[in-house]
């Protein structure tokens, strides 16, 4: 575990709530970005991540520190998101641009390019729509592997399944996603 996280957890357990505030600041962006891809709704994602942080805070004394803090937080948030989806069942699609705030540029020298963040919005909406139609297990592995760039071991830790299962899920998820996305001719 990162030393900084270990120190912050110790301070939290010592009664310093602001130390937990630093943990929230550090991981809220990653968690929110993953969860919104799962539930496809900004407000639901905010509620789920908020609940996940509160759960984590309450159970912080039970965190053993044998895994990374962020994998533990992911596990809590993903479990909350899956429970939420089971309850809700109704799939909502990410409105075009409604949740596209604070887009990180791929371009390293974004500062020279005023107002071009929306150039991939349509493609992003199309991809999000396809992603939303996958099963939750397939969504999770694709989000964690491609969007979050995590390793097999970390994904296995978060989802509490063996690495072999992650491999096979990824395989099936990629093929399923391919079927849901338009072919080349349509995408032109």
């Amino acid at each position, binding site marked *: 575990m990162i030393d900084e996280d270990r120190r912050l957890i110790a301070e939290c357990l010592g009664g310093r709530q602001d130390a937990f505030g630093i943990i929230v600041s550090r991981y809220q962006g990653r968690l929110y*970005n993953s969860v919104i891809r799962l539930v496809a709704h900004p407000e639901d994602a905010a509620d789920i991540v908020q609940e996940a942080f*509160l759960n984590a805070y309450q159970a912080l004394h039970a965190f053993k520190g044998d895994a990374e803090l962020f994998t533990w937080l992911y596990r809590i948030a993903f479990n909350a998101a899956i429970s939420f989806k089971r309850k809700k069942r109704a799939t909502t699609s990410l409105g075009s641009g409604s949740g596209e705030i604070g887009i990180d540029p791929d371009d390293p020298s974004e500062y020279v390019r005023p107002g071009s963040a929306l150039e991939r919005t349509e493609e992003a909406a199309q991809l999000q729509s396809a992603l939303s139609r996958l099963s939750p297990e397939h969504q999770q592995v694709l989000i964690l592997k491609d969007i979050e760039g995590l390793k097999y071991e970390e994904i296995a830790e978060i989802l509490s399944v063996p690495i072999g299962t992650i491999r096979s899920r990824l395989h099936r998820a990629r093929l399923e996603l391919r079927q849901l996305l338009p072919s080349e001719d349509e995408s032109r």
Partner: protein
Amino acid sequence: MLTEAQLTLITAAVDGDLNDAEARELRRLLDESAPARTTYERLRADSIRLQSLPRIEPPTDFHARVMARIAAFGTIPVSPLTRPTESIRNPGRHSWRRWAPIATAASVLIGIAGTSFLIFSAERGDTARNPNRPSVSGWVGADDPRWNEWLPVNSARPSSAPMPSERNEGAVVHEAPAPSFAPESTVAVAPEPRTPDHDLIGAHPRAEFPNFDHVQLRLPFLEPLADFEREAVRQQLAEELGRDPAFRIDLFARNTIRGTELFQQAARACGFAIHADANSLSYLRKGQVTSVAIYTDSLSASELAALFTVLNSEDARVSPRVFDAVHAMPVAREDEVEIRRILGIDPGLFKRAIPAPDRRKEIPKGTSVSAGTADQIASAIKAGKGGGGSGVLTTWAPAQGRTLPSMSAELKTYLSKRGERKPDAVPVLIVIRHGNG
């Protein structure tokens, strides 16, 4: 039709999860099977698209909301919680935790209030032990005439201020001044504000502002491509490109694919060879590339201005026009790093044969840049008065979709033919990208 084993091999390759033997097997499969190649390319492209999805940030007040919930919850419980989620879903279960501090504070407040009440009640009761004090029932305050009997001669009546709790008969009463209101003239007046002392030690140093005789501002070049039909704009770009060793030029297009095609046409018209990376063009056509980069260091400032003039004429032939603005800025450190990544080498952007100010004098006025139609300019460049250079075209964004320098045959060709840079050549990174409109 691909077998399950072949599909597994392909998806593992997309995940970068192949050992050497599997990688060889995949290569053989891709060489022999067209469906395998197509599937591999599509799955890889999907993965790149997922990686390129814009990051969505939480609401701006998200952190505050979480911390408000945390604050309401209180400190972390010491005893282990076996099922932490239940306590959140049922807030009433631990509601006493939130109310305990408030209840304690309320109890203390009530205690203080009660004690004060008892003390003051006791003081009221003391009047019965003082025979000189007027009875409470007949009180008329300081105007009570009976004060004259109880106080020594010439002593003042008590003011209407709160009555002392004890007044012993034998006590010496000092002559207190008669209660009177202070005249207006004696009301304390606040002193005048101190004049600020600028010589105070520790005061913030204030820089003396120099008197400027002449101020020159340098703004980045930003003009519509359509304006390149004007001599002044062409000359302006040529002069701008002479001011720094290397430049980045952003070319905003309404359609990146069409913009790239037009740029290639303009380059061909000028005899400027563009080595376009095949993978980048393929991904561009599939809509998986959002912007492309052209790097060249074989054109002079005036030749570059001429190239944009020809590009403008190509753009004017289509309706609606594809290009919008041209934005030129000196290459920044970040751009330099990206150029190195794209090329796989350090092109030596800042190696200069001739200092920038001298180069500006070399721009021939009234020649290819400032005179003639676009066709004449293109012909002049083609005829050898300039041009003949080469550049490479590859993916700019998303960065994950770029072809590795070692994997691009076109890039290798460009680098092998690049040769020595001309003394007046300006290294430029031209980025064709989507505009705002």
